[in-house]
């Protein structure tokens, strides 16, 4: 059993997430498009490639690296049977994200975030509840363009976060930020597809390894 858990950690890319996306895919899905210069957040400046006609362009090379790290991390979490919670507050993609979560067998929260969900979970849900092991943000801002409360709460509860940060977002408290567009339907569909494929791949690998162990 220990071998099952320690073996994936020795490889840099055990689940081979690099082959799931290419730079061209990201470009076709318009992931490099950011907001206007006036909306730029100070901490996003390292991730921005440049500015064209007042619109920020995100550096896709850095996005590739961050995306690979983030997908690798989610795959490891899913392999170890962790609870993944998809969070977004964009009304356009709420249905899509919920369907993605259902397809993976994981969980989603695209509605109004009640204050004590993570920090006061034992009172809200009941004693013995298990909190999510990973939070995935398809959009880090809420409907009033402020950072989502869940980022701060996850940091308080020591829960790692993966988040798509746009040029107007604050990437500080997110463990694995993915600089990229969070407003275009094409970009969000691409992210959902990638997360779904990684999680399903990780779970299948786990089942295979367990079957192989049992046969021995």
């Amino acid at each position, binding site marked *: 059993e220990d071998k099952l858990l320690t073996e994936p950690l020795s490889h840099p890319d055990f689940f081979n997430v690099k082959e799931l996306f290419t730079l061209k895919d990201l470009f076709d899905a318009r992931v490099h498009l950011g907001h206007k210069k006036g909306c730029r957040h100070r901490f996003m400046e390292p991730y921005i490639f440049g500015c064209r006609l007042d619109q920020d362009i995100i550096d896709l090379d850095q996005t590739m690296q961050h995306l690979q790290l983030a997908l690798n991390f989610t795959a490891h979490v899913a392999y170890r049977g962790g609870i993944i919670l998809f969070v977004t507050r964009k009304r356009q993609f709420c249905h899509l994200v*919920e369907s993605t979560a259902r397809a993976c*067998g994981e*969980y989603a*929260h695209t509605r109004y975030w009640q204050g004590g969900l993570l920090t006061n979970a034992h009172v809200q849900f009941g004693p013995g509840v298990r909190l999510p092991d990973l939070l995935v943000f398809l959009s880090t801002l809420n409907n009033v363009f402020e950072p989502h409360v869940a980022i701060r709460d996850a940091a308080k509860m020591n829960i790692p976060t993966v988040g798509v940060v746009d040029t107007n977002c604050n990437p500080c408290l997110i463990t694995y930020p993915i600089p990229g567009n969070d407003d275009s339907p094409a970009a969000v569909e691409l992210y959902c597809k990638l997360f779904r494929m990684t999680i399903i791949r990780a779970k299948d690998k786990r089942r295979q390894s367990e079957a192989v162990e049992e046969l021995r």
Partner: protein
Amino acid sequence: TLRLICTTTAVQRKNVGASGPEKYTEAFIKKQIEEFNLGKRHLANMMGEDPETFTQEDIDRAIAYLFPSGLFDKQARPVMKHPTEIFPEQRKIQWGEDGRPFHFLFYTGKQSYYSLMHETYEKLLNVQKHQDQLIAQDLPLQKEKRNLAGSRWLTKIELEEMLLEKVSDDDYSRFIQLLQKLVALPCADIEEKYIQKFCKEVPAQLKTVVIEPLQYDERGVAFSTGEGKRKTASATAVVYDNGTGKITVNGTDILHYFPVLQDREQLLFPFQFLGRIGKHDMVCTVSGGGRSAQAGAIRLASAKALRSFVTEKEVEFMRQAGLLTVDPRVKERKKPGQEGPRRKFTWKKR
């Protein structure tokens, strides 16, 4: 859980009210069901009847016999029912052995409500896709309008019962708005079955009331009976056809029984409303109440009897005129500390 080390005793006292209603575990309910079945057999033995064929009605009769209670409220009396009827239905533990919750929207807090919204939105997207396909093929969109007059949406309480969790007013109104949006689309007929789950029939008021057909006596004259009440007076009226407008009350003519013009006007009102003053004969009996109450009771009784002679439209007119409604006004009780039902004692400044 945190353990408080140096605090006042006031903080350590458990606030019983703050924990909320008790949660009944599955084991507890199971034990209650076993106890109920055992108790049922004991009761049957006590009453000398067969334990195998002891029904719920027998239990109720036995309890009413063994524990006679003079309490006014039926729900306060001793009761022995199956635990599923006594303990309200509650949600069981939402997660499995490994801690993973069963429902994919568990972490939102209101999983049933949000999953309902998710499903309804999916139906809406389906209908829009179907509509786009029809437009692409240049086919006409169906324009059959659903009959909205006879149905209503579920109320908030009915929705709460369906979802087994609290629904706030805003959530409820949002859900109804989404349903209305779905129904407003032209191709909503595809999801008719899904929408029916949230509709309730509203039967028209008149359909529940059965209007009796005309009866014929030995002479072949059609007649009909009606009953009416007003304050403490109750009356029965028999209205005959082919009459001259003669009205008899308790054996005497109305001119002698009701000397006051107002009471006679009340009696004639139903006939005058339908325009049938000289066409019907009436024989009525009345008891209780005073002069005005008796007149009101006979008026209601005659209006009910006249329903059989008249078309449905005229019945609806009568109902709207207030001829068929029972007057609910009765004498108000006197309250302690006051002289009468409303009059207070004289207020003296000093």
